């Protein structure tokens, strides 16, 4: 198993290296001159050239790329062009917010998606199956930013039962930062009131983010369960007198879920990138809003770092998914040998 995990990690490294090089080239060939933005209004071409030289932006692209790769390999993501602070520091302030939201959305999507998929498969072509199908098609078709605004209008403005924006009410301030995850830090600070407030702030963005994932998981679980239900061992188990619920939940689901687990891994990446629009609408101070701000101010150092961090998170999740698959179905690890 250990060998299997190491092999998966080794496979992720070249992909990350490719990501570093490719994103650097992309970020430097698109229009936008960070030096001009830094120099500000009424700066003369000479001042802009001076700044360009000071930040090494006048060097040949290949040389800049090599410097960038060397920096990244040595663990230095560089400083933001605008704040002058290490990008890694700024990202670490933002990353927990995105990870927390994504994780909660994923748990929500997984639990509900698997349950809906299972129920739909057991009621194949019945009314529940049709209902789940409508929910899944709707979940995939509805634009997230539209849903976000609709939820805000209904739950925050009309009914006034859930917060509109942000991670926590301004009256509380932020709890002492230990992990950066508010749901954990508020509990560590012994503040259940703040925990509840943070939880309330998470409901609408998490639902918005979860919906497309929920739909995907429900569809994959449904088809996986339907396929498993056709297997001989199910027929045997039925003949042996196993109850319908026990058979589905314990035997069928375990065999059917491997495909869904792969999907959950892919979804994690999709959710992180999908968080950009949702973070903007809900003012969620995560990596998505940081990336948008970096794009709008041509802070390419910040942008490259965000891309790399998302790439690393994605790679780590992929390795975890491979491991989870091997744990659920030991044949996967054996086949990989």
């Amino acid at each position: 198993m250990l060998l299997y995990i190491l092999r998966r990690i080794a496979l992720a490294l070249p992909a990350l290296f490719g990501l570093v090089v490719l994103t650097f080239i992309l970020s430097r060939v698109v229009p936008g001159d960070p030096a001009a933005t830094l120099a500000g209004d009424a700066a003369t071409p000479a001042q802009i050239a001076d700044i360009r030289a000071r930040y090494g932006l006048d060097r040949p692209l290949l040389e800049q790329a090599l410097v960038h790769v060397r920096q990244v390999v040595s663990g230095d993501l560089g400083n933001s062009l605008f704040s002058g602070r290490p990008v890694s520091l700024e990202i670490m302030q933002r990353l927990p917010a995105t990870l927390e939201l994504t994780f909660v959305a994923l748990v929500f999507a997984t639990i509900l998606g698997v349950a809906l998929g299972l129920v739909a498969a057991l009621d194949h072509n019945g009314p529940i199956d049709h209902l789940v199908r409508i929910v899944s098609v709707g979940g995939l078709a509805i634009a997230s930013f539209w849903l976000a605004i609709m939820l805000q209008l209904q739950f925050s403005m009309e009914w006034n039962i859930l917060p509109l924006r942000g991670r926590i009410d301004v009256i509380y301030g932020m709890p002492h930062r230990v992990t950066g995850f508010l749901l954990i830090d508020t509990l560590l600070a012994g503040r259940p009131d703040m925990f509840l407030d943070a939880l309330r702030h998470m409901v609408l963005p998490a639902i918005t983010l979860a919906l497309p994932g929920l739909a995907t998981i429900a569809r994959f679980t449904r088809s996986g369960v339907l396929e498993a239900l056709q297997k001989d061992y199910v027929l045997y188990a039925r003949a042996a007198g196993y109850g319908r619920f026990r058979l589905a939940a314990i035997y069928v689901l375990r065999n059917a879920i491997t495909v869904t687990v792969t999907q959950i891994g892919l979804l994690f990446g999709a959710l992180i990138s999908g968080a950009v629009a949702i973070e903007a609408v809900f003012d969620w101070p995560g990596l998505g809003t940081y990336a948008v701000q970096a794009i709008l101010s041509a802070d390419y150092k910040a942008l490259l770092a965000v891309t790399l961090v998302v790439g690393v998170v994605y790679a780590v999740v992929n390795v975890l998914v491979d491991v989870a698959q091997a744990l659920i179905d030991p044949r996967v690890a054996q086949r990989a040998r």
Partner: protein
Amino acid sequence: MINRLLRASAIALSLVVAAPLAASAQQRPLVWGDTLPATLDPHAIFDVPSQFILLNVYDGLYRYQSNPPQLEPWLATSHTVSADGLTWDFTLRSGARFHDGSEITAEDVAYSFRRLLTLRRAPAAAFTPVLTAENVTAPAAHTVRFVLSTPYAPFLSAMPLVAIVNPRVLSQHVENDDWGNAWLAAHDAGSGAYRLNPETYQARVAMDLERFPEHFMGWAGNAHPIASVRSRPVMETSTRVLALLRGDIDATDSYLPPDQVERVERNPRTRVARDESMRVFVIRMNNSRAPFDNKDARLCLAHAFNYEGFNNVILRGFVLRNAGPNPNNLWGNPPDLAPYSFDLAKAKEHCDLARAAGVDLSRPLEIHVQNELEQTVQAAQMYQADLRRVGITLRIVPNTWPGITGATGSAATTPDMWIHWVSTYFVDPENWIGQMYDSQFQGTWKASSWYTNPEVDRLLRAARTSLDQAERARLYSEATRIVVADSPDIWVYNTVNLRGLSRRVQGYSFSPVGSGGEMRLMSLEN
């Protein structure tokens, strides 16, 4: 089993829904929903959001107050200028203190200017052509001296751009000769009416300010000053408006969309502050290339923009038609300056004249818009439809501010046309016509129309060096008349700033510099 699950879910849900009651029992601090700058270092950046830091956390030698803006002595009490316009002496107020309690000295002021001129970032641009770091000195305890390389009349108007920073605090945080730049990005070394809480600061996300009771201006003019300000920028316009209506924030940015004004005013808890600003909406033309190098072609384009339709229908009349490059409410404008009218017949006449002179108007023209700023897109779309009626094809190219300004460094890469605003950085025609149409500034985004007229250059340069205010007004007026007749760009409107405010905010006072974000003047009604 199912019943137990349902009951547990109901309890959890009711807890989640009922939790706000605990929070709402306390009085909410003032929550400011405007944008925050990328860095808090006042010498590293200069844009509209950074003025909020400049006005609240720092002080300068002079400051603009009220509307129309008046330049008032601030940390300085007065100044003198030598007859040749080169030596400026500022007398410093005594007793003003930084947030750490130390007194502000003339040497601190000189240090601040030296830091600005060495870092050479955005706010330095107004000074670097005429001032070097070694020419800022403190000859006496309360005197700061600036010796300019050439006379520069707008020098005083640019003075409020510069924040005075505390060298004793900064010297403890210098890394790699950065003058404490990285540290100051998230900390405070000022003397302003509010001080930053660095513990809770999160770049562009959250900034908490606490009142500085020892501020040198005192608090006598404000019986109930605001003790704590929570700056919480709201990214999306729709969320920002909803947050104001709901009472989550007390102020939006000052660019409330015109279609939201009525909605905000209908709400009993909120209002809209409308103030004429100095921020001109302009459609640029690249005069260095055909067809814009032909005056008739430019006049055709100037008459084909539907000013009335854009200003009064799309923007619902919440702007003021502006005839030339300087805002209407600034000195130095000819009193009888007539704006271009929307007249397609006249536009066709000029287009025909241009064609007769051999100008090719058949190639599609490109207009670059700032995609995240809806008005630029709306203006381009409306313009595209009207230009089609005079036989000109306009192609709209989505872009961003850095994308466009990065391209304006050379005439070859500057777009055919692009749309932006020129905001108030300092209140002097130099900020608008001076830097937009003097050919020496070509290569900067402000002079991106690549317009060259030796007579205009002469007038603007004379106005820049003259210390006679009446003479300067005459020179700018004459230059404006020539520039408007040449029609190098299309000037559309002067902005009326629209800021959504909670009615509990009292004492809001607008000035085009800083857009009314000076907290010192405000109080909070319960």
